[in-house]
């Protein structure tokens, strides 16, 4: 009886261990590397009317090899300036990052006029990758800090 119970306990423990091992060591694959930020239609008008219209966070966190392309979409009816980039209405700007680091930008789409893109290195196999997967499970859009 005791032996049977031990075997029964071993099955879920083994399954959890296997899942954790997979999460820690399996390569990260992502369908799209894009981290999309959209400036919706009417943003400019709302801001002109004195409303708060926060679209972009203070910090965007990207991860190399996972979601390392910042995709800015201007769905508003007026041009928007993001750092040195003038994005026309209906236009996308796709900026790939190849190096980890911090990139501060001036941005008219942000009420404070400033934002920072933090590019983190690819999570290494082991604890880093496990941590990243757990965080991704909790957050649908992990690049929004």
């Amino acid at each position, binding site marked *: 009886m005791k032996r049977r119970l031990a075997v029964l306990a071993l099955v879920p423990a083994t399954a959890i261990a296997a899942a954790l091992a997979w999460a820690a060591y399996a390569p990260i694959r992502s369908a799209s590397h894009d981290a999309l930020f959209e400036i919706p239609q009417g943003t400019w008008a709302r801001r002109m009317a004195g409303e708060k219209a926060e679209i972009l966070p203070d910090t965007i966190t990207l991860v190399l090899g996972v979601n390392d392309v910042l995709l800015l979409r201007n769905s508003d009816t007026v*041009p928007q300036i993001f750092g*040195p*980039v*003038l994005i026309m209405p209906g*236009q996308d*700007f*796709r*900026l*790939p990052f190849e190096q980890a680091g911090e990139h501060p930008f*001036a941005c008219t789409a942000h009420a404070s006029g400033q934002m920072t893109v933090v590019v983190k290195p690819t999570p290494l196999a082991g604890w880093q990758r496990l941590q990243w997967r757990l965080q991704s499970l909790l957050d649908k859009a992990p690049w929004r800090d």
Partner: protein
Amino acid sequence: MSRPYLFALLLAAAGFAHAADKLKAGTFDPPREAPQIALKAADGKDFALDKYRGKVVVLEFGYTSCADVCPVSLALLKQAREKLGALGDKLQVVFVTVDPRRDTAPKLKAYLEQFDKSFVGLTGTEEQMAAIRKAYGISATKKMVEGSKTEYTMGHSSYLYFIDPQGRLRALMPFGRPADDIVHDVSLLARGQ
């Protein structure tokens, strides 16, 4: 060669080709026509951006007193032009000053010749240069040097602006990318991508 192995090789090659076909710079979709620039160039000749259709034009906004960003980018562009070999003639570098008060035509011409004689320099009145910056969404801010009443630096965009042979503003490359990235993107654009 076994079929699965050949298939895997083809898949890998297709993946590589797809990655190689993408520009390394930030790209616009859809691209818009690059705002026209028409000025007297630093060498005294008339300059019109739309006369460069058929070439890849790389715009750099900067100033000759810039100590860190501009000389590095210009040196990288010179290096890229050399690395392009025969395709080098398809690249036209245009340096647009953000400091027209100090960057006179002769000063700009002499400065650019230190890098590459083919580089075109553009300067004009404060209003003319401000209009160009506005069309490209660029800001330039003057900052006085501490302890001086006359010396100043200019804060400006350090990106390179890529205009394709059809005259469309296609891409922006952040400062500090290697010359090989410029070569890669100019080659793709020159081939009509």
